[in-house]
């Protein structure tokens, strides 16, 4: 299973990658939203894991592009430290499948990833 992870905080991104790789996933990690989106267009991922606030473009824009322009229904998980309810509503509006508030619990993240990948198969 190939996951693309887009997060600009080094420590969090590396930790999440390490964690997911330990659980048997292949993870491509990006700290820039634009580069992440390019990678999504070029490759065939099984799941997108993205932060909202990033340099380049935001996780919201990535989600919008994937759903509307690429017309893909690849599972998308958005995580953010924003405590604003509207952010969560907007995320689902744009077509995200899951919304996780930071700090992200690795165990919870794993459960949600697995759930999304299973329903897809």
């Amino acid at each position, binding site marked *: 299973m190939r996951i693309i992870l887009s997060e600009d905080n080094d420590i969090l991104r590396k930790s999440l990658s390490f964690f997911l790789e330990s659980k048997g996933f292949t993870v491509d990690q990006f700290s820039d939203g634009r580069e992440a989106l390019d990678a999504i267009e070029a490759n065939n991922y099984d799941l997108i894991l993205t932060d909202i*606030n990033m340099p380049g473009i935001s996780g919201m824009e990535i989600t919008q592009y994937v759903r509307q322009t690429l017309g893909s229904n690849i599972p998308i998980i958005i995580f953010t430290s924003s405590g604003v309810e509207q952010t969560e509503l907007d995320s689902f509006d744009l077509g995200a499948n899951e919304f996780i508030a930071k700090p992200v619990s690795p165990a919870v993240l794993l459960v949600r990833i697995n759930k999304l990948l299973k329903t897809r198969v």
Partner: protein
Amino acid sequence: MNNPEQPLPHNELGRLAALKRYNILDSLPEHAFDDATKLVSYICGVPIAHISFIDENRQWFKSEIGIGVSEVPRDISFCRYTIMESEIVEIGDTYLNERFKNDPNVVGGFNVRFYAGVPLTTPDGFNIGTICAIDHVSKKLNKNQRNALSIIAKHVITQLELATKNIELDAQKKIAERAVLAKDSFLANMSHEIRTPLNAITGFTDLMAQTRLDPIQRDYIDNMQIAEENLLLIVNDILDLSKIQSGNLAIDAQTFNLKSTLKHVYDLLKIKVPENVEFNLFLDADLPEMVVGDQGRLNQILVNLTGNALKFTEEGEVTVSVKKVTETNNHYSLKFSVKDTGIGISEDKLNTIFERFTQAEENTTRRFGGTGLGLNIVKQLIELQNSEIHVKSKQGRGSEFFFTLTYKKADEIETPEAPLLGSNLGKLKILLCEDNVLNQKLVKSVIYNFGFELDIAENGEVGIDLLSKNKYDLVLMDLQMPVKDGYQTTQYIRKELSLNIPIIAMTAHSLVGEQERCYEEGMNAYVPKPFKQAVLLEAIQTVMSKDFTVAKKRKVDLSFLEEMACGDPGFIKEMIALFVDKIPNEVVLLSEAFHKNDNDTVKRLSHNMKSSFDIFMLTDLSNYLSIIEEEAKFGAFTTETLDKINSIYCGIDEVVKILKGQQ
């Protein structure tokens, strides 16, 4: 009035304006007018009488007998001719009058056979209406009747004038009342505004007085201090007075210790007693210990009265005595008396001494000083407590001021309230590093009030010595000290002794950048001098609070990282290295951006750093970042933002030290 035959007075427009000014048209009946109408009817012996006013279109009856309508059209009114005249108009028999003999109200209608009308003439000469006597039979008024009718007409106008003047007066009164209110609140605001910088001037003069001065400078400073004290008294008096006047002064109902309050007043004034005067405080044996009431105001009243007594007494005695007068189930009535053997007050002045700005003698102010407001304030403060002040005095023999106040009995269980009690912190042991003896005393008494223990070091060197011998909970650090100043001492405590004991800086400088330097050197809080007790206590509470205690004994919790790393020690090390490498630099960038007011960078950095802090479970610091991010978003930093950034700075410093130890 379109009929060209209708008569119009030559001053019709002015006349109508004059009528409007009285606001009488369509008003309710009034006794004064009805009585006048009755008089007309009695005096002239007629069944119909009225007082009426004529506007553009109608004759309106303010008062009438025998008519039964409130108005008639002007063009059928007899009186439209009367207001053209300056004197009484009398028509003995309308049948014989060319003008009226065919009038509808003569041949029918009201059947007017006799008519006598006097114009109602305003003081400026306008005929606004009439007062009339009417009958169904012909008659002739005698001279007295005609005179009486004219006199009543004058009275009616006087009545109108009075009513108008009353309305005007009422309006003026309201304006005046509003002005007084505005003045009082202006005074209250101004005296408050003046007091704030005055406090600073006093504080700094006090500080200057503690520096090395030559005799001339010393003399100048002494004079300044006396002047400041007087000015503060005046401003406080005005503030109190305006508060009372504007109804903003509330009487407290708090439990307090009556005896110790009285003792306190006595001790306070003991120092002002002239050499040849004996100063006594007599307390009734069965005086209650605790009562419920306004301690501050009792204090103020007694200090004022006793201060006066001491001021005006050159020899003999001044005695303050308090007696219990009555006691009910719920209340005590206590009589307070301040008696002196001073210059006394002459009998003709006794009534006015409680008035504002009045003193017994014109030259009192010059001889004895004072604002002339003190006794007025005392009087009003006592009245606000539902009582009154009395005075007995004879010139040259002395005076006695006395009053009775009723206090509620204190609930036995209720303990006196001491709002500034740091008891929730337990018995803190505090070290003060301070070279100035007066400041040492001040801090000592304040800290004891809080219920803490205090050791004093007169410079940093001694402080370090004490710190290495004893255990303290926190340090209060003056910045300017001989031998080792506050910065050097803090450096030594942090670097050499490796103690993370909270340090609160205390300084009179309040220089720009000084606060930052304190935090950089590792101090935890900052209290400017002259300090307010509440501010100091708050600083102590802040540094002793949970967040700080967490910070003090910070243990880095790696469980979250361990979960991420699935127990891989190599990866954990790698992340710790990344943290140690990156984060301190980011904190510096955050601080820089904050000082440059670069809100966007503050927002971006605090947002980004949050994730890093969360992985190392630095919840308290992460929360600070959330708040800072939010504040940056709205561009609304508060005074506490800098404190938070400094806390992050110190916190990360500590975390990095701990993490380095684990590497």
